C-alpha cells in the first residue's frame, strides 16, 4: 500500500487508487467534471489538476495512479492558477445562461466556477452555438452548454449498454449526439441528466417547472420494479415534481430506471380520490361511512373461504398485513399476492429471494437466466450484469426468449425442459456451472408463471443445489417484477390455486366477495357477478367490476415497508398527502374492520409493524441482505417443453401509475415512430 504526502500530510492508501481518490481520502477537495466514480476515466476536462513534486507541470489527478512517496500539493498558488485557467477555458464557449437553465442551483459548473474560477473572463470573441439534439422524450438538450466531459457517452456505453451516443467532430466543433439523431433507446437514459455536470442534458418532462431549492426532498423507496431502488422524491406543495436516485451501493448504486424516474406524472392522474359505491349498476360517489357500510352489509355472514383477496404489485407490506388480518377476522386465509400466478413457494424464504444478492452479481462468474429478461424487469440490475460482462468477461446464458439485453448472451433456447438436461448433467451448461466458482441462476417470473412453474422452480432449485453452492455463496436467485411480492410471501400470502383459482371460483359463483388491494394486472371480468371491493390509488383494471372503491394512497403518499427481490426490507417515506379523500391503505382497512365489528388490534403504524414482525420476523430487519437457510421448495413434476413467454411485454406500462403517465406514453410512442421511420426511410 503506497504512502504519499498530500498537502504536507502523510497518508497510506489502497493500491490502484488515483491521486484524486487519495486526495479525497486525505480530505482535500478536488474539483472535477469528467471524472465519475462509476465510469471509466477519461481525463479530458483538466479541472482536477494538482501539483506533483518533480513533475514539470500540474498533473490530472483523476488519471494518475498513486505511487509510493508521491508528494502532492492541492492548495498552492500554481494549482489555484491552473484551476482558474481551466475554468476560464471551459467558460469560453459556455453561454452562462444560468437564469434560464434548469440545472441552475444544482450545477457543478456553476458551483465550481464560484469556488475555483476567476470571477471574470477575458474572452471577447463570439461564442459557439450548437443545435439541439433529439434524445427522445426524456432528455432535453441544450448542447451549447456542453463542456465535452463525455460522461454521458461513457455512461451510455458502460452502464446503459447502448452505443448510440457519441461525440462527433472535434475541437470547438465537437457535438454530442445520438447516431443519426435517434432517441436514446435505453431504459436507463434518464441517468445522463444526473451525470451531466452542466445544463446540457436536463429532464424534459420536468423542464422549467421548478427550481431545486423550492423543493421538499423526501428519501424513499421505488416500487416500479422489485429492486427497491433508493429514491428521493422532490415535491412542491402537493405535487411530486421529480424523482431522483439516492446512493445505495448494494441496491441501485446511483442509478434508477426511466420508469422509476418518470412515471411520477401518473401519480396525479386517474386518481381515486373519493369512495364509490355501486348503486343500480353504476359507481356513485359516496362518503367513507356509506362505503364501509356497503362493504359490511355485503359481507354480513360471510365466512371462511367465501371471501378472498388478491394483492397487487405495488402493495406495501402493512396494507397486505392489514388485509390478511381483515380476512382472518372472517376466518378466511384466502389471500394471494401472486397476481401473475407465479408458482412461488412461501414456505422457504431462500426459495423466493435473490440469495446471492444484487451486489452478488459483482462477484459472480457465471450467470444463467431462466425465463427472466432483466433489461425490462429490472434495468438497474441489468446494468450490473452488463458491468460484469464488460468488466470481467462473465458469461451469461439464457433460457428464455432471446432479447437484446445489451450484452452478449449464450442463447440456450426458450425451451424450459433444458433444465432437466442441465440437472442430469447432460447439458454443457452443467459443466459451466460446475466450473464456475460463484455461479448464479436467476429465475424470472416468466418461467414461474407457467402452469409447470412449480416444476421449473424445483428444477432450478435442484440445479442450484447441485452446482451453485459454495462457501458463503448461494447461487439461487429469483428476480421478481413486483415490489410487493417478497413482502407478500413473507406474510404467507399464497393459496392453493392462486389468483387464478380465486377468479375461477368467483366466475363459478362460489365466492361471496373479493377484495382487490391494488390488483390491476389481472383480468377482472370473472368478478362481474361477485361483490368486489377495490382498495387502491388509480382507476385501472381493478375497478372495472368493483362494487365499492376505497381510495388509497400511492407509494409516494405513505410510509410503508417494502421488501425487495433479495429480501432486503426498506421503509418508504411519505412525501405528500394522498389526494382528496384517499387515505393510507392500512388505515382504511383498520377503519373498515371497525365497522365490520372486528377491529384490527392496532391503531398506529408502529403498533401494526410490531404485530407484523411477529408474523414476519424478517420485516423488522431493516436494510440488510439476509442470509437465508437453504431448503427444499417447488413441486416435483414434469416440465413441458415449449417456449417461456416474457413476464413483461412493455416496460413502460407495467402498472397503473405508468399506464396513465404521459411521459411513459411518450416513450412508447417515440419507439413506435422510430420503428416506422426506419422502415420508411432506410428501406
Amino acid at each position, binding site marked *: 500500500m503506497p504512502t504519499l504526502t498530500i498537502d504536507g500530510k502523510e497518508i497510506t492508501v489502497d493500491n490502484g487508487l488515483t491521486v484524486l481518490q487519495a486526495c479525497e481520502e486525505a480530505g482535500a477537495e478536488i474539483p472535477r467534471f469528467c471524472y465519475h466514480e462509476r465510469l471509466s476515466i477519461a481525463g479530458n476536462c483538466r479541472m482536477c489538476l494538482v501539483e506533483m513534486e518533480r513533475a514539470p507541470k500540474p498533473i490530472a489527478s483523476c488519471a494518475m495512479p498513486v505511487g509510493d512517496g508521491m508528494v502532492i500539493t492541492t492548495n498552492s498558488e500554481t494549482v489555484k492558477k491552473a484551476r482558474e485557467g481551466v475554468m476560464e477555458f471551459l467558460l469560453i464557449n459556455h453561454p452562462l445562461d444560468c437564469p434560464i437553465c434548469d440545472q441552475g442551483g444544482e450545477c457543478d459548473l456553476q458551483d465550481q466556477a464560484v469556488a475555483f474560477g476567476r470571477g471574470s473572463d477575458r474572452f471577447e470573441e463570439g461564442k459557439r452555438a450548437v443545435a439541439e439534439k433529439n434524445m427522445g422524450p426524456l432528455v432535453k438538450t441544450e448542447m451549447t452548454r456542453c463542456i465535452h466531459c463525455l460522461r454521458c457517452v461513457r455512461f451510455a456505453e458502460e452502464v446503459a449498454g447502448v*452505443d*448510440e*451516443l*457519441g*461525440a*462527433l467532430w*472535434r475541437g470547438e466543433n465537437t457535438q454530442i449526439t*445520438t*447516431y*443519426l439523431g435517434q432517441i436514446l433507446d435505453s431504459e436507463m437514459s434518464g441517468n445522463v441528466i444526473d451525470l451531466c455536470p452542466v445544463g446540457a442534458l436536463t429532464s424534459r418532462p420536468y423542464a422549467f417547472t421548478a427550481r431545486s431549492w423550492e423543493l421538499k426532498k423526501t428519501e424513499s423507496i421505488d416500487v416500479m420494479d422489485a429492486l427497491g431502488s433508493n429514491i428521493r422524491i422532490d415535491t412542491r406543495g402537493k405535487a411530486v415534481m421529480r424523482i431522483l436516485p439516492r446512493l445505495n451501493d448494494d441496491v441501485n448504486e446511483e442509478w434508477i430506471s426511466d420508469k422509476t424516474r418518470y412515471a411520477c406524472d401518473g401519480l396525479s392522474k386517474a386518481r381515486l380520490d373519493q369512495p364509490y359505491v355501486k348503486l343500480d349498476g353504476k359507481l356513485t360517489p359516496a362518503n367513507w361511512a356509506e362505503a364501509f357500510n356497503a362493504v359490511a352489509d355485503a359481507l354480513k355472514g360471510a365466512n371462511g373461504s367465501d371471501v378472498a383477496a388478491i394483492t397487487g404489485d405495488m402493495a406495501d407490506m402493512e396494507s397486505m398485513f392489514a388485509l390478511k388480518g381483515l380476512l382472518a377476522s372472517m376466518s378466511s386465509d384466502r389471500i394471494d399476492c401472486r397476481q401473475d400466478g407465479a408458482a412461488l413457494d412461501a414456505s422457504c424464504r431462500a426459495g423466493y429471494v435473490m440469495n446471492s444478492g444484487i451486489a452478488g452479481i459483482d462477484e459472480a462468474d457465471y450467470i444463467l437466466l431462466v425465463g427472466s429478461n432483466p433489461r425490462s424487469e429490472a434495468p438497474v440490475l441489468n446494468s450490473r450484469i452488463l458491468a460484469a460482462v464488460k468488466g470481467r468477461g462473465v458469461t451469461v446464458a439464457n433460457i428464455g426468449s432471446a432479447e437484446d439485453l445489451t450484452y452478449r448472451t449464450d442463447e440456450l433456447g426458450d425451451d424450459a425442459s433444458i433444465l432437466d438436461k442441465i440437472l442430469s448433467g447432460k447439458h454443457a451448461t452443467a459443466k459451466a456451472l460446475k466450473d464456475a466458482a460463484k455461479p448464479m441462476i436467476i429465475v424470472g417470473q416468466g418461467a414461474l408463471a407457467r402452469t409447470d412453474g412449480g416444476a421449473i422452480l424445483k428444477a432450478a432449485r435442484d440445479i442450484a443445489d447441485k452446482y451453485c453452492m459454495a462457501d458463503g455463496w448461494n447461487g439461487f436467485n429469483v428476480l421478481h417484477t413486483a415490489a410487493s411480492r417478497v413482502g407478500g410471501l413473507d406474510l404467507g400470502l399464497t393459496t392453493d390455486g392462486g389468483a387464478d383459482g380465486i377468479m375461477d371460483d368467483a366466475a363459478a359463483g362460489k365466492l361471496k366477495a373479493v377484495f382487490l388491494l391494488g390488483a390491476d394486472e389481472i383480468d377482472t371480468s370473472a368478478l362481474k357477478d361477485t361483490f368486489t371491493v377495490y382498495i387502491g390509488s388509480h382507476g385501472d383494471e381493478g375497478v372495472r367490476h368493483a362494487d365499492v372503491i376505497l381510495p388509497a394512497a400511492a407509494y409516494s403518499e405513505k410510509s410503508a415497508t417494502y421488501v425487495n427481490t433479495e429480501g432486503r426490507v426498506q421503509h418508504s417515506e411519505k412525501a405528500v398527502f394522498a389526494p382528496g379523500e384517499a387515505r393510507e391503505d392500512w388505515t382504511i382497512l383498520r377503519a373498515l374492520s371497525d365497522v365490520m365489528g372486528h377491529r384490527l388490534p392496532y391503531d398506529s403504524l408502529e403498533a401494526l409493524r410490531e404485530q407484523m414482525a411477529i408474523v414476519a420476523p424478517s420485516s423488522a430487519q431493516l436494510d440488510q441482505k439476509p442470509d437465508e437457510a437453504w431448503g427444499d421448495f417447488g413441486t416435483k413434476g414434469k416440465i413441458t417443453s415449449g417456449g417461456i413467454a416474457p413476464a413483461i411485454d412493455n416496460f413502460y406500462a407495467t402498472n397503473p401509475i405508468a399506464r396513465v403517465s404521459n411521459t411513459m406514453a411518450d416513450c412508447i410512442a417515440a419507439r413506435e415512430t422510430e420503428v416506422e421511420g426506419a422502415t420508411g426511410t432506410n428501406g
Partner: protein
Amino acid sequence: MSGNAEKFEFSSETAASAEMHVAKYPAGKQQSAVMPILDLAQRQNSGWLTQEIIEYIADYLGMAPMKVLEVATFYTMYNHKPVGKHHVQVCGTTPCWLRGSDDIMNACKKHLGIEKGETTADGLFTLSEVECAGACVNAPVVAIGDDYFEDLSPESMIELLNKLKNGEAVQAGPQIDRQTSAPIGKATSLTDFVGKET
C-alpha cells in the same frame, strides 16, 4: 453525411487491403484498423464517405456505427460530402500563412471560381483550407490527393491547376529549384562537412 443510392461493398482490392490491415492487430482487436479501412473505403468511393459506408465498416469490424462515425468525423482527412477529382487542400497554419498562403488561397479561388469548401462545376476541383500539413519548412504548402506541392507562389499554383485540369503530368514536391527540404540554392551551414562529402 448523406446516403447514396448504390449499395456499398468493398471491391476485391479494398477487401484484400482491409484484411491486411486487420491482420496487423491481435485477434479481437480488429477495431484498431478502423482508420486505414475508412481511408480505403473513401478512396474506393471517389474520395468521400457515406452513411452506408460507415455502417458497412461498422459491421465489418464489429463496432457500433456511432463509434466509426466518431472516428470519421474527428479526423479531417475523411470527407463527408462529395469532392472533386482533385481535392486542393491549402495549408493555412501560421508558417504557411507567414509565407503567403493567403495569396495561394486567393489565387485558387480566383482561378477556379469557387470558395472554400466548394467544388467546380466540372467536378474536377474541390478547394479546402487545412491545418498544418507538416511540411512547414517548404511553406506555403498545398496537398492535392496524395501529393504535396511546396514552395508555391500564386503563379506556380495556377500553373499547377492548369496542368491538372489538362491531365498533364505534374511534379510533386518543391515547385522551385530545391531538393526536398534542403536549403534553397546551396548549403548555408556545415559547409565544410558538405564540401568534404561531395
